[in-house]
């Protein structure tokens, strides 16, 4: 049975320093929620508070129908997976898996059954008798996941579980975690600073900065309609192109005036008074070549990053360096002149002063 989690007006601090301030978050039953943010922004602190490993300074934590604010970790129906794996070094894999069940006084045959099931799901059968030090990083992290799995927890908490793994294993295990969520349908809360993990795993992403949630939305929404400049810059690789300019309302649309020229924004109605803004364009919203029917500018190619299936080119247009996503077989050369089409109709606009998105 999936269970919802609710954080209500939560403050968390270490001593006098407040790390999280007045945070509200509703996580639906069975949801895969990713907490994403730069390191030091309070993600682990928040996760530890949900687990009951850190006290709140203020506010409540609800899991399902119960107020668990003062409950011990073991009474919250949670399992936790740490970045450092945190396997018990003095026990073999089997003992690591069964430790929680032994502590809880689960009967022997039931323990055997549950360990066997978890070990089958995570393909740990060949390693049951090994010590953690005799396992690879990926195997260790699977054991750590298994430790939550055997206890039949309602909620899985992951604290950067893949950060210590190399790129290939990270991808593999990411897929496994996604599969696991699909099979178990448990509520999962996943902390990471890796946007690829966030985008691929999440039902919803909560982007945090300095203990404050900047935007809580689906990956697609966050990518296409970032709520502010911080989110816009944090999500996407290469980052969103930002162009400073002025936005003027006009009849039937608006006008964007920047150092690169004046462009009509048909169909976008903004208030009539001029406004200092930043226009945000994803690299795929900049099209190479004339005749695209978009707002066209002239630029010079300054760097070409070939990535295999695609190429990213960095083009200089006056004081701006713009990145554009092009095909893998892009024929251009550095220092070549080039025409770029800016898809301003689908661009994001942010207020220069507040950094907030304009609707």
């Amino acid at each position, binding site marked *: 049975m999936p269970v919802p989690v609710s954080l209500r007006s939560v403050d968390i601090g270490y001593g006098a320093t407040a790390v999280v301030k007045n945070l509200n978050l509703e996580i639906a039953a069975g949801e895969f929620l990713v907490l994403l943010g730069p390191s030091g922004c309070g993600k682990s602190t928040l996760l530890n508070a949900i687990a009951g490993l850190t006290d709140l300074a203020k506010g409540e934590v609800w899991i399902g129908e119960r107020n668990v604010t003062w409950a011990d*970790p*073991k009474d919250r129906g*949670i*399992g936790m997976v*740490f970045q450092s794996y945190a396997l*018990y*070094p*003095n026990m073999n894999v089997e003992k690591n898996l069964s430790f929680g069940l032994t*502590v809880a006084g689960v009967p022997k045959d039931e323990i055997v059954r549950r360990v066997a099931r978890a070990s089958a799901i995570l393909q740990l059968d060949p390693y049951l008798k090994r010590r953690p030090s005799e396992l690879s990083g990926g195997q260790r992290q699977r054991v750590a996941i298994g430790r939550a799995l055997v206890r039949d927890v309602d909620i899985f908490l992951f604290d950067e579980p893949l950060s210590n793994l190399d790129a290939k294993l990270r991808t593999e295990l990411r897929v496994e975690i996604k599969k696991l969520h699909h099979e178990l349908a448990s509520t999962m809360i996943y902390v990471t600073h890796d946007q690829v993990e966030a985008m691929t795993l999440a039902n919803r992403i909560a982007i945090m900065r300095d203990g404050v949630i900047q935007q809580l939305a689906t990956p697609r929404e966050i990518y296409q309609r970032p709520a502010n400049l911080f989110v816009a810059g944090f999500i996407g690789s290469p980052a969103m192109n930002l162009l400073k300019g002025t936005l003027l309302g006009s009849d039937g649309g608006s006008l964007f005036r920047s150092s690169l020229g004046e462009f009509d924004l048909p169909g976008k109605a903004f208030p009539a008074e001029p406004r200092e803004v930043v226009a945000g364009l994803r690299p795929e919203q900049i099209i190479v070549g004339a005749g695209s029917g978009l707002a066209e500018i002239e630029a010079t190619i300054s760097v070409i990053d070939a990535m295999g299936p695609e190429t990213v080119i960095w083009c200089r247009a006056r004081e701006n360096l713009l990145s554009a996503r092009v095909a893998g077989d892009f024929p251009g050369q550095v220092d070549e002149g080039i025409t770029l089409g800016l898809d301003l109709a689908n661009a994001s606009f942010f207020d220069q002063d507040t950094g907030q998105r304009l609707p």
Partner: protein
Amino acid sequence: MRDPFPQSANGPRPDKVTPARLGLYAFLVIAALFFLLPAYVMLVTSFKSMEEIRSAQIFSLPHLFDWSAWIKAWSSACAGVNCTGVSAGFWNSVKITIPATVLSVLLGAVTGYALSFWRPPGGKILFAAITIGGFIPLQIFLFPMVRATAMLGLYNSLAGIVLVHVVFGLPLTTLLFRNYYASIPVELFKAARVDGAGFWRIFVSLMLPLSLPMLIVAGLMQMTGIWNDFLLGLVFAGRDNLPMTVQLNNIVTTTTGQREYNVHMAATVLTALVPLVAYFVSGRWFVRGITAGSVKG
């Protein structure tokens, strides 16, 4: 200046004996002799007869290996009117050292664990107090401690001397274990909490097995310290429980008749034997425990 990039450079750099290196060796050799010579003299003297000793060639090997001084030292040397050798003291020391070592190490492990992971309110102040307590010379506590043990009815008893050793050992063992546990990732503790384990469960199933190297180091330090103790044994143990060191002293300082140097040397070596053997047996572990913080697996 030497050429830092000689044309002929190839393969390993040649060893060079510099004056600094020579000085270092000289110092080490002298230091080694400083400790080894007295030990050598004691050993050879203990195997000599009194006649040979009087010939005053202290560095020469004995003409004839003579065990009688050792036997006398163990079982019949006199301390005043009491002629039982150091054997009675040996067993007293065993009875004091084993419980005092085990208790002080285990208690230090528990307090270190509690301070390190559970962070009780006031824990930092408590730890500071314990550490400072460990640096104050224990003579200062002697009189209050006498009164305290007397009040508990433990003065001049085996339990009393064990208690005193445990109390005076706790600052050191707590410090050792707290710092050792500080090197264990706190996630391990958190994982065990999430798994439902409580204070004692985590200690017994997880922390204690992980602290084997420190258990051995702390055990060894406590054991040697307690075995070698003289003052506390003299003050708190009572006549029937005097440790080996006190009895050795009584034998050596007994002045009736001639001084039996061979017996005294044998008795001294016997007294020193226990810590010596302990170090030889566990030396490897000892080094491992001391460096455990830096190279944890």
